[in-house]
């Protein structure tokens, strides 16, 4: 029997990146926890009141309850973001590039190429930006989702179609070019030779 239900609900709602319904919250508890939907609802109502005067609140939206920053303080948060545009992590960029070049591809396949796990938040961020989307499931055990890039991805990178992505030899020559600007003046053919050598 749980006596202190309120902090457990707070922990669950704050850790979740999606709103949680009363039913979903209820699934967390066992029979002997003595927690039913009625008790959960009551605790949530009491919690809602307890955040008066704080910078955040517990709101009920269509798919359940979630914490959000108080409307009145949102402009401060906007200032925080305004000043420092963030950068995407290397992990995100690598994952995105693998999807672009190897699509359609499952998360497991990306992980085996990168040799390291791909966190859900990276996938979510890219879906959120509409750069990638799920285009189906691979018919292997577990039916993992297959990811592919979108038109928005192409738009962002000023590409008309995927085949406008630089081919790998250009990738190498792009490196060469930025490393040593002098190389740009060399005739095209010679440059390619250099690249080919360095690859093999």
């Amino acid at each position, binding site marked *: 029997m749980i006596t202190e239900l309120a902090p457990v609900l707070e922990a669950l709602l704050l850790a979740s990146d999606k709103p949680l319904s009363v039913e979903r919250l209820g699934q967390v508890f066992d029979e002997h926890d003595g927690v039913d939907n009625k008790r959960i609802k009551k605790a949530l109502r009491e919690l809602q009141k307890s955040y008066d005067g704080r910078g955040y609140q517990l709101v009920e939206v269509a798919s359940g309850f979630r914490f959000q920053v108080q409307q009145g303080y949102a402009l401060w948060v906007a200032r925080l973001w305004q000043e420092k545009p963030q950068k995407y992590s290397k992990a995100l960029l690598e994952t995105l*590039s693998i999807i672009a070049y190897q699509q359609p591809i499952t998360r497991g396949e990306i992980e085996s190429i*990168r040799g390291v796990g791909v966190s859900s938040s990276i996938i979510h961020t890219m879906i959120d930006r509409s750069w990638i989307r799920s285009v189906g499931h691979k018919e*292997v055990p577990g039916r993992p989702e297959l990811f592919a890039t979108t038109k928005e991805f192409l738009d*962002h990178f000023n590409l008309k179609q995927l085949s406008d992505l630089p*081919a790998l030899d250009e990738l190498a020559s792009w490196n060469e070019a930025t490393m040593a600007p002098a190389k740009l003046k060399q005739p095209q053919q010679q440059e390619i030779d250099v690249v080919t050598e360095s690859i093999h």
Partner: protein
Amino acid sequence: MDIRVEGKEYEIPVDLYIPPHALQVILETTFEGPLDLLLYLIRRHNLDILSIDVAKITYQYIAYIELMESNRFELAGEYLVMAATLAEIKSRSLLPSTQAIDEDEEDPRVRLIKQLQEYERFKNASERVAELPRMERDNFSVNMSMPDVKQARPRPTVQMDELLAAYGDVLKRCDMYEHHTISRERLSTRERMSSLMAQLQEHQFMSFHDLFNLSEGRMGIVVTFLAMMELVKEKLIKLVQAQEFGPIHVSLGGQNDSPNQELAL
């Protein structure tokens, strides 16, 4: 005295014998190298590193190595180097004591003990570090959504060169340069594969012909066909035909519950 305790142990051969359940433990836990194995042997006998009996440890160590080899464990060369070191220490111990003292700087036993002590410190420390409260295991970050604000959060932008550099790193890491020369043709096929998957997800069962867009011309049709073949090969879609010479339909892989025959490709 030490010797008496050790002497007593020596009288019970059972203690030196590695019981089968202990072997099981060895086989299930992988050692983090020869030092880890040595520490395990020393701890099993409740011995202090400073007073290890090299002869005894050497035999047990070699016994484990033989055991691992007979179980086709891939043994790192480090394990064999350690076996040789132990053998050297043992043979030195057989020499008259005066000779051994002469070169105490180089004494391999001193070196080994120092190494074991050093390793044990960090091994213990890593066990404590593992127990520190850790994000995503003991602590979770807080996800708080924002109400609508006029100023939307500026999203970071990515330049093409950053993306290329990231992909270059991936390729470098997994040595894919040789077998992954990505050409334009291949990419347009991959793109078409994605769009075919998306179409089939929406309509589930489509006529083979409907998947071709004739206005794309010959090249477009070839690309679509290549993409289809690739998808069939990866078992992502199925081509089905209700009867011989009948219309061909395409569906996502695994969703074929009609009695139609599958096209063998």
